[in-house]
């Protein structure tokens, strides 16, 4: 073949996107289309005593709980969320009804006249309140999930440890802030609901709607439109909007479009789970970590959403890249009366890696060890067991990667030079983080739930169409999928077609999450393309399918959390360099150096784009992206208050790949998108710590908090 799949090619979706021709949901109009706007709860928790709707002008409609089938529960993983509030509300902004009509001003006017009378119930607003409540929001104990992961024998370790170190770490909310807000159009015609919109997971929407409307499979069709970013935020939430829009279209007998305003999207849609993590490490006399106890608490918000799986990923990642033979990890996802915490790039791993990386650094400081030597002394290597007792089967190149990052960043030289410069008042610092990301679904999701299927369609003009349900949302799926197929078939990329998925045409190859589009679906496409290649001359047109097979030799017990939680691991090393203003304590991020093992890069340019974007999003999470909730309302709820990095906030980013291919990934590819996010928050916090000579255990790192610590200690 002689071609290098990593060599970058022109993105096919680029031209239409640059020229503004690409049609996103807000650009799509149907004949007779109406608009829907959401009436939302004004209180954090309460019973709805009554709703008074004003008389409606001709052509305007109210759609609420009375317009949807019983029991009015939307199935995400659990079925705990109403599509329109039934009789209680559990967070500020919970949807109660839609006002639907032609003119947005008239809709706003109707919304302003609706009177909802509530009976307030004491809301649960903190994790502590959620853990100790007598009035649970969810179940008997107010926990969406309550798990334990054990490895080895922690009690035995407690007796023989020479040193013990304990720390507590906190991370805050983060809003995905995809540039295109949530948007869905529903069109009910001839007994069939068609959903168009901005989404990551067409079949999640289809399945949620099938369950909700108790419809036959051929009566729900979901079509993805060009999607302006997702980052996890368009994994579960679009199912809710789709159910509402569908109910409206059924009632009004016209297409109904819902597109969120930015403020609505910031305040009411899903966010990254805030976390509180306690870690207690047991060390022997050689400062080898021989055991660790972890207590992970995630703030799940008002409804279960994906919290249980987010929690699992956080728990499985909590020992980081370190070979800790004895573990006791407790994890709880707590219900609170706040917006739903959902999926966001990294899915629990960023919280865990922040905690373990800071923890390891603090242990080293406490016992006067060189942090990097201490970390290297504890690193996992091939053959070691993961937190769940699975095996790291592939070569782990972390030592080499650390060396490379040290050279790229002049780490040791800067570490000592900055120390000197600090004596002269220049608050410079440098920090390094080591991390991994497990590729694809956690546990046996692929094998037991998704069972992905892909199709390739060879057409009479000798083009090949990819039929999968995974979407292009900016991450490059269109390009990488086409490359894999073209490369395998040895045909020009122009001959391979990828259209936005339509569930009436494509099989369920699963959701667009967790890097599985490249690692799992990409491998299925490669297999299908191999078969198509062998059968190419069999017929003028051909359809070839491939089904997911769980890789041989891997094991997973989802009840006991034992075995291979992931089949592949990607690794990373990040170095962040900052300078902190000695008066305002604001930090300027100067440079970031990053080395990754992502297996085989499928397109180096797309990889670079993911690296740059992931690192900057992580830096935002750890630095300027502050979202606080007070009495049930977010204080930062507009784009003027919730600040994401601008072009002026970003450092120079130098990155390299040092890769170990994965046997079961297409051409050796492993996970990428989430990995690039995971490492920069701890590296940033450690660089600020270095600059200021104090301990940081919480993100976002805010200047006012630094000032507080400097004035009053912890």
């Amino acid at each position, binding site marked *: 073949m002689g071609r290098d799949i990593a060599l970058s090619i022109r993105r096919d979706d680029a031209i239409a996107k640059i020229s503004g*021709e690409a049609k996103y949901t807000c650009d799509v109009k149907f004949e007779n289309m109406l608009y829907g706007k959401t009436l939302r709860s004004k209180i954090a928790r309460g019973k709805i005593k009554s709703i008074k709707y004003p008389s409606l002008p001709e052509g305007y409609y109210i759609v609420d709980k009375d317009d949807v089938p019983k029991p009015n529960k939307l199935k995400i993983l659990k079925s705990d969320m109403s599509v329109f509030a039934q009789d209680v509300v559990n967070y500020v902004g919970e949807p109660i009804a839609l006002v639907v009509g032609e003119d947005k001003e008239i809709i706003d006017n109707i919304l302003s006249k609706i009177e909802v009378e509530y009976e307030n119930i004491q809301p649960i607003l903190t994790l502590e309140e959620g853990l100790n409540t007598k009035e649970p929001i969810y179940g008997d104990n107010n926990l969406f999930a309550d798990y334990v992961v054990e490895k080895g024998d922690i009690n035995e370790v407690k007796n023989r440890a020479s040193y013990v170190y304990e720390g507590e770490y906190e991370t805050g909310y983060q809003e995905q802030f995809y540039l295109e807000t949530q948007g869905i159009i529903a069109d009910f015609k001839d007994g069939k609901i068609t959903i168009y919109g901005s989404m990551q997971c067409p079949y999640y929407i289809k399945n949620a709607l099938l369950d909700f409307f108790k419809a036959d499979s051929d009566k729900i069709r979901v079509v993805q439109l060009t999607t302006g970013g997702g980052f996890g935020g368009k994994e579960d939430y679009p199912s809710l909007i789709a159910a509402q829009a569908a109910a409206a279209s059924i009632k009004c007998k016209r297409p109904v479009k819902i597109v969120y305003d930015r403020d609505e999207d910031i305040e009411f849609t899903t966010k990254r789970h805030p976390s509180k993590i306690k870690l207690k490490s047991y060390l022997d006399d050689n400062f080898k970590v021989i055991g660790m106890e972890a207590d992970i608490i995630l703030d799940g918000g008002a409804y279960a959403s994906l919290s249980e799986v987010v929690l699992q990923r956080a728990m499985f990642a909590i020992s980081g890249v370190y070979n800790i033979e004895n573990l006791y990890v407790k994890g709880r996802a707590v219900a609170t009366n706040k917006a739903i915490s959902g999926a966001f790039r990294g899915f629990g791993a960023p919280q865990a890696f922040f905690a373990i990386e800071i923890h390891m650094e603090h242990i080293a400081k406490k016992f006067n060890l060189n942090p990097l030597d201490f970390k290297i002394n504890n690193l996992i290597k091939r053959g070691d067991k993961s937190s769940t007792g699975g095996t790291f089967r592939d070569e782990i190149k972390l030592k080499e990667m650390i060396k490379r990052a040290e050279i790229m960043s002049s780490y040791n030289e800067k570490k000592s030079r900055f120390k000197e410069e600090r004596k002269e008042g220049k608050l410079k610092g440098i920090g390094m983080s080591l991390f991994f990301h497990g590729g694809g679904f956690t546990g046996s999701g692929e094998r037991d739930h998704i069972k992905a299927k892909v199709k390739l369609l060879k057409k009479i003009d000798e083009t090949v169409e990819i039929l999968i349900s995974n979407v292009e949302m900016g991450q490059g799926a269109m390009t990488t999928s086409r490359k894999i197929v073209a490369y395998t078939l040895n045909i020009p990329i122009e001959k391979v077609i990828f259209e936005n998925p339509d569930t009436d045409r494509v099989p369920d190859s699963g959701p667009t999450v967790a890097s599985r589009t490249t690692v799992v679906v990409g491998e299925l496409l490669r297999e299908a393309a191999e078969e198509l290649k062998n059968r190419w001359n069999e017929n003028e047109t051909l359809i070839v399918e491939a089904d997911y097979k769980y890789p041989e030799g891997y094991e997973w017990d989802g009840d006991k959390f034992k075995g291979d939680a992931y089949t592949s691991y990607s690794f990373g090393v990040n170095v962040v360099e900052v300078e902190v203003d000695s008066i305002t304590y604001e930090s300027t991020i100067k440079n970031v150096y990053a080395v990754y093992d992502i297996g085989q890069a499928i397109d180096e340019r797309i990889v670079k784009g993911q690296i740059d974007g992931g690192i900057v999003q992580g830096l935002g999470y750890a630095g300027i992206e502050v979202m606080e909730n007070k009495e049930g309302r977010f204080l930062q709820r507009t784009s003027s208050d919730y600040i994401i990095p601008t072009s*002026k906030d970003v450092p120079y980013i130098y990155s390299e790949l040092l890769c170990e291919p994965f046997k079961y990934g297409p051409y050796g590819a492993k996970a990428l998108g989430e990995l690039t996010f995971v490492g920069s928050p701890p590296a940033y916090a450690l660089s600020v710590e270095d600059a200021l000579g104090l301990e940081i255990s919480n993100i976002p790192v805010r200047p006012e908090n630094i000032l507080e610590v400097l004035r009053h200690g912890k």
Partner: protein
Amino acid sequence: MKIFLKINKKDMEFDIKGSETVYDILKSINITSVRKSCDSGVCGLCTVLLNGKPIPSCSYLAAKADGGHITTIEAVEEEAEKFGRFMNEEGAVQCAYCTPGFVLTVMSMKDNLKNFDDESINKYLVGNLCRCSGYQGHLRAIKKYLGVAE
């Protein structure tokens, strides 16, 4: 009230309400490349050029633009394509929802920015948010487009 605008080199007259913005006017003549998001002039998605300078059309009152020349991406097709090639080469095109606004700001930068050093370029771009790229690809692409790449 009546206002006159030149939109993409075409003279046009509008009868507007006082509260209408430049964005509203552009939507009324079916220009879809301009998109609204924050509705407060923060994100830059709705950027158009008014007399060659970028403005957030979502919060810029149409009355205030009376007599001015509005340029949207449709009118700078050739240059946008030229710059777009660099964007594409540098991996700056991802979800691209922000891209039309970005391109217009860069077109204006080319005519109005005096120093093309990194700091000045980044400062000029500060009103255009992007959540995908980390702005690194944009910076590399802009420097190549302006012929100032090392």
